[in-house]
């Protein structure tokens, strides 16, 4: 049975944990990624995504637990693992003071490919990632999107069956992001197993077969994007307001008629709350009017991965803060 898991899963992790001082950056981390699938590790900054990637790519040793990548233990056989993986970390993993071609050739030489083979592979990858015209230019003069593509090319020199990407599209404009997504889809089409971390729910929705939601070093949910949306999502009522200072009042009004706690999105200037069968939009509008809220838009929609993320990451912290405001209200009332 174990044999079966090893051959059909590119990455298996059990009870992985990493402690820094008193803090656990990662705890009880379980994973089983089927060969050829895409796993999205989703979480905020500091949720433990990068720590998980660093353990699985042999960069750091775990404090607890075991992990196998491509059938090899990351602690006992790091070199065997390294032969099977490609890694693109968040920071630039290519050399800015060398040309794109020289970077890729250097990586090939570090895999001990003969010089000619390394050069040919570099040229092949530059062409595939549409960097052939930039191959002779210094990487420091590349645009963000070009540099990411070169980073990816550097991870592909040895055609690794398992690829790890730590926030591959952070800081990219939408066009470059879409380009990179297309590339990743091509790779997966060719049989590569992909493990990527992201803060963007859309990215996980677009690419991942399975999603692991991390929060404060712990897994809070796993499943396909659809499963997660169905399980934790349901329909939402969304109220968009004119200004930031309306958000509190809108949330309060919405909670009176909705089926659960309202989530506030300050950037998007909206509040969203779970809707039940019996939730009527007209009641929401009435509640908003009674609360004196200047609402721009009120609508029902299907849950997004965003909603799942919102309702699962640190719910205690948010519930605590809403309670705190209610408690202080009560105190004022009794005083």
């Amino acid at each position, binding site marked *: 049975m174990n044999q079966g898991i090893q051959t059909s899963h590119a990455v298996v992790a059990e009870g992985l944990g990493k402690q*820094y001082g008193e803090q656990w950056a990662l705890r009880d981390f379980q994973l089983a990624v089927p060969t050829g699938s895409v796993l999205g590790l989703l979480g905020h900054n500091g949720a433990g995504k990068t720590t998980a990637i660093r353990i699985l*790519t*042999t*960069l*750091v*040793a775990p404090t607890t637990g075991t992990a196998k990548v491509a059938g090899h233990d990351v602690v006992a056989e790091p*070199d*065997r693992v*390294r*032969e099977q*993986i*490609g*890694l693109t*970390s*968040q*920071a*630039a*993993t*290519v*050399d800015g*003071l*060398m040309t794109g071609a*020289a970077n890729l050739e*250097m*990586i090939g*030489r*570090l*895999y*001990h*490919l003969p010089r000619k*083979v390394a050069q040919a*592979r570099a040229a*092949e*990858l530059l*062409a*595939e990632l549409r960097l052939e015209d930039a191959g002779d230019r*210094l990487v420091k003069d590349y645009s963000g999107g070009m540099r990411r593509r070169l980073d990816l090319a*550097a991870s*592909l*020199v*040895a*055609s690794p069956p398992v690829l790890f990407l730590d926030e591959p599209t952070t800081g990219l404009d939408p066009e470059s992001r879409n380009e990179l997504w297309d*590339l990743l889809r*091509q*790779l997966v*089409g*060719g*049989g*590569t197993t992909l493990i990527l971390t992201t803060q963007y729910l859309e990215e996980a929705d677009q690419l991942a077969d399975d999603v692991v939601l991390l929060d404060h070093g712990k897994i809070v949910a796993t499943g396909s994007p659809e499963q997660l949306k169905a399980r934790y999502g349901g329909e939402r009522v969304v109220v968009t307001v004119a200004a930031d200072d309306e958000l509190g009042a809108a949330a309060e009004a919405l909670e009176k008629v909705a089926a659960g706690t309202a989530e506030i999105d300050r950037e998007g200037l909206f509040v969203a709350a779970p809707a039940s069968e019996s939730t009527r939009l007209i009641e929401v509008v009435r509640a908003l009017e009674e609360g004196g809220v200047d609402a721009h838009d009120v609508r029902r929609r299907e849950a997004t991965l965003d909603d799942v993320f919102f309702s699962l990451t640190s719910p205690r912290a948010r519930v605590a803060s809403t309670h705190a405001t209610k408690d202080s209200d009560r105190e004022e009332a009794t005083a």
Partner: protein
Amino acid sequence: MNANAISTPTALPRVPAGPARLRWLAVDAWVLAKRQFAHIRQIPEKLFDVTLQPLMFVLLFAFVFGGVIAVPGGGDYHEYLIGGILVQTLAFGMMGPGVSIATDLGEGIIDRFSSLPMSRPAYLIGHLTAEFCATVLAVTIMVISGLIVGWGISSTPLEALACFGLLFLIAIAMIWLGTLVGVLARSPDGVQGIAFVAVFPLTFVANTFVPVGGLPDGLRQVAEYNPISAWAAAVRTLFGNPTAIPSGSAWPLEHSVIASVAWCVAILAIVVPLTVRAYRRRTTG
């Protein structure tokens, strides 16, 4: 159709076991040393501290101060000067390795190297190799410019050879020291600050440019026991240049060759294990 080329399986040589690993280490280290040479091609200014700066110092001190500084106990100032400048340049040679490793550690490139099936010590060894090559260049430039301003080697070939040996030992000690500072510092700028504040006074409160006899009490004792003084005195002694060390001077000056080697060994004995540990901690933390 594109997918095919991206995921073309590449036949990889496997990481060998046993003694063959050493050959892999050598290849990896050399590939990484060549990376630093490529940097120098792009930013030639990187080499200024080991080329133009010593050349400038030789010319400045030889022609600006050369006429007014007399060497006590006789001898030509140009003959005296070169030993000091050689040692000063090697001492400042800690800056380059520190800055370059701090730069790498501040970026993600070491993660890339660590995720490859290459030899673990290759990065540090490649780094030290490249920096050592830069030092060899610096010493060559200074020896040639010294010969031009009237300096010469007056000792036996064996002593001269021993002197080059000592210079390279000093260089290795300072490169390791710089690497340690680079691994511990938070940024390349930090390295420059630390190196300048530490090395600049050390090379001046010494016999680098003038004999220590004229220094006021307190400062003179510091200069006498300063490793830079022992190194400069040893280089002058081994090249057969005037040392301006009267008999009855402090022990490290009278026994400068032994003192110099002892300083280098002591620095390496402390700095090498600290550096390796700090590097491991920073790259696997």
